[in-house]
């Protein structure tokens, strides 16, 4: 197993990159009989203050918490959903009712039975009130009726698309135990750092700065699972050390490109170590040029289009992301084959066209060749957002725009862009949450007050855009809903209030002994009940 073992399921419509991509972690090896036992040691990427996934729907939290607290359903490879705590669901014709049949015989880690009361409580008190995405999706949720212990009927005051509710299941519906949270200050409940769930693993211990320990739940509803005795998330702030620890077999797995992409080729050649680019499609990240549309030059769509023409997307995907990204064609990732409009024609790399547009907009080159100067704030959270900032500065110089890079740490960046709007261009990285209404329209709709991060703080306001977004939000017919989001993508690509450059996923680096890795599109943030260790 010493060859570079990249199993990279590319998106449908593209060919497999090269014949050398072996399928080491794929079906051929999954046929081995799973073995019970062993503790998996994983590199953790941080210690969030609140690790309750029902409140904090972020990948940093899901990475660990998804093993303890379960959602109603999980994503399936190739599209669709696998039941977790819900067995089935169906919507009414008027879009005001969604009926969930829940899994019977499930118990919480403290022994109490899991019932529809827990789902009703989580939906009404947590998802709808405390979770940023849930506030949107469950905005019109009026009540959840619980005729019996395994039925939860979601009643909405206004039509709510079943398609949206379905797409929200994996990331937005972590179920909390009512008996622990009811009647307390939910946001400050001690169980937010000492999780109690129904999942394959029980939360056992957190030693700050050192590790989290999860142990096997012997009463898990999926008989015989989980295979592992436990999982330890070891806090490792240095990425070079993560690579070294994997080589020395002191950790067996790291996710979210914790081992830097630049190290991918080298570590893939280490005997006993495999690099897996699969298992992240369901949490695709998007590389976006955020634009302050209130700035005089940038309020002109021709200038924004010129910036888009100045960017060589191939360079971005191949050189910055080393082939682990794809060029975007608009605001919805290509991965979402239902919603993405394949006919979109984003501005292609064309420096001459960019220069012509800028001339036409009335910004001739001045002394020194610069037309005007802009502040550029690359988000500090990824190596690639920073590198793309450096690239964009150079790309803009070629079209006569002088971009001054302003580097900030995460707190300062968030405030500058999303509260003070003290930027001209910024580089952002929103996560696509499986439906445009969950994570994408918020980047385009107007009326969002300053201080709401990762939303339209771009001073973009279009009645046409707001109209389409509002209409789609209550359109319950799936086909018409998709058509409205096609319109949404067309307007977004015409106005270009922000520019989607690329979409990317991550790599997992694991020892060969770790099996059943990356077998669903949200693998890193899913249950791991079927993950096992061979020898």
């Amino acid at each position, binding site marked *: 197993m010493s060859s570079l073992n990249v199993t990279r399921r590319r998106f449908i419509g593209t060919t497999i990159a090269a014949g050398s991509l072996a399928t080491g972690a794929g079906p051929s090896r999954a046929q081995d009989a799973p073995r019970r036992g062993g503790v998996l040691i994983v590199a953790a990427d941080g210690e969030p203050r609140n690790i309750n996934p029902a409140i904090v729907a972020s990948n*940093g939290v899901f990475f660990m918490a998804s093993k303890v607290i379960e959602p109603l359903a999980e994503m399936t490879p190739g599209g669709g959903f696998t039941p977790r705590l819900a067995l089935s669901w169906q919507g009414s014709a008027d879009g005001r009712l969604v009926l969930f049949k829940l899994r019977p015989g499930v118990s919480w880690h403290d022994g109490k039975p899991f019932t529809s009361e827990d789902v009703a409580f989580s939906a009404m008190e947590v998802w709808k009130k405390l979770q940023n995405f849930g506030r949107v999706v469950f905005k019109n949720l009026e009540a959840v009726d619980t005729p019996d212990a395994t039925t939860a009927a979601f009643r909405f005051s206004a039509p709510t698309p079943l398609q949206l509710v379905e797409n929200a299941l994996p990331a937005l519906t972590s179920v909390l135990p009512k008996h622990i949270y009811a009647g307390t200050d939910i*946001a400050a409940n001690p169980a937010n750092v000492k999780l109690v769930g129904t999942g394959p693993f029980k939360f056992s211990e957190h030693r700050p700065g050192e590790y989290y320990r999860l142990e096997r739940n012997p009463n898990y509803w999926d008989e015989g699972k989980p295979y592992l005795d436990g999982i330890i998330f070891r806090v490792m702030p240095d990425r070079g*050390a993560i690579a070294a*620890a994997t080589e020395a077999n*002191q950790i067996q797995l790291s996710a979210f490109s914790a081992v830097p992409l630049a190290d991918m080729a080298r570590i893939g050649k280490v005997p006993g170590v495999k690099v897996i680019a699969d298992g992240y499609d369901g949490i695709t990240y998007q590389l976006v040029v955020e634009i302050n549309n209130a700035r005089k030059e940038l309020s002109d769509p021709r200038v924004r289009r010129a910036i888009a023409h100045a960017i060589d997307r191939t360079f971005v995907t191949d050189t910055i992301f080393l082939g682990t990204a794809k060029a975007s064609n608009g605001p919805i990732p290509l991965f979402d084959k239902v919603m993405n409009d394949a006919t979109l024609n984003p501005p292609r790399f064309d420096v001459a066209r960019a220069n012509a547009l800028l001339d036409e907009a009335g910004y001739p080159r001045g002394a020194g060749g610069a037309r005007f100067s802009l502040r550029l704030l690359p988000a500090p959270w990824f190596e690639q957002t920073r590198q793309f900032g450096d690239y964009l500065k150079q790309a803009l110089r070629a079209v006569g725009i002088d971009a001054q890079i302003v580097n900030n740490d*995460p*707190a*300062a960046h968030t405030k500058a862009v999303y509260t003070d709007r003290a930027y001209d261009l910024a580089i952002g990285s929103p996560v696509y949450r499986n439906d445009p209404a969950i994570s994408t329209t918020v980047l385009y709709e107007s009326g969002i007050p300053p201080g709401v*991060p990762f939303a339209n703080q771009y001073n973009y306001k279009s009645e046409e855009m707001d109209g389409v977004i509002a209409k789609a939000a209550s359109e319950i017919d799936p086909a018409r809903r998709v058509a409205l989001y096609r319109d949404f993508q067309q307007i977004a690509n015409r106005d270009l209030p922000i520019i989607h450059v690329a979409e990317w996923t991550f790599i997992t680096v694991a020892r060969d002994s770790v099996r059943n890795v990356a077998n669903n599109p949200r693998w890193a943030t899913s249950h791991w009940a079927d993950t096992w260790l061979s020898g």
Partner: protein
Amino acid sequence: MTRIIAAIPTMAFVVIGAFVLLSLAPGDAVDAYLAQTGGSGGAGDDLRRRWGVGGSPPERMAAFAAGIFSGHLGQSIVHGRPVLDVVMERLPVTLTLMGLSLALAVGLGGALGLVAGARPGAPRDRALSASALIVNAIPNFWLGLLLMLLLAVRAPLLPVGGLQTLGAPLTGWSAVIDRAQHLVLPTLALGLGYVALSMRALRAGMAETWRADHVRAARALGHRRRSLVWRAVARPAILPVVVLAGQQAGTMIGGSVVVETVFAIPGMGRLAFEAVSGRDPPLLVGVVLVSTVLVLAINLIVDLTLARLDPRIGAADA
């Protein structure tokens, strides 16, 4: 006692400085938090109210002052627990690491310095001095990674990082040995640079002392070099090494940020870093306060040691 009283204005200055500087930095704890969670975890204003980071600067200053004098140094925003608890969790690790590194610096550095200074200019002195220069010039994060690659990955003799072997609980002596093994590389990474410094200080002092009148007189009287090394040359030259150790204790806390990060050790250096990036002024002040006390304590020990080594020192100050 007078020393402790004299330290109070210093501490007050350090505390107010740390608080004000971090409060002036753009973005607050909620911004840092929302950046981490991608906007999840609560509405900004609600979080600010809950965590007590809203309000005007004087209000925050008052709340902070109340926290400082509350007996547990106030509430950490990032951890949501009393600052004193959080800092005390990390203190033993940092103390151990610093103690071992200082011991290494003084012990090994002193020994090598003695060897080099016994005959300044000799080949072994030149070799040692040159190596010391190189080691001293290597940044400790790089030294750490290099040691890790050589001694933990290429030759898997030692653990890569952390405090203990996880996944297989050990007890009794094997647990003690396991923990000791985990400290070897971080101690080397943190301490080697200071070994070089101590060595050079001792060697330089000795080289100078060889030229002092009383040593030349002793040599002229026929005392052999070897018999003079310890009795007449090294002893006075050791004083600067001890003084240096006191100073190193201060800079070591800074250096430990990097070493603790590379070796995934939950110490105070990393805590300070987390406090800054998480915009947690009470926690930062807590770390700074405890570190200041630590440095003062070490310097007190240094002064007492000096007084023992050289009776002329400290008589007036005690």
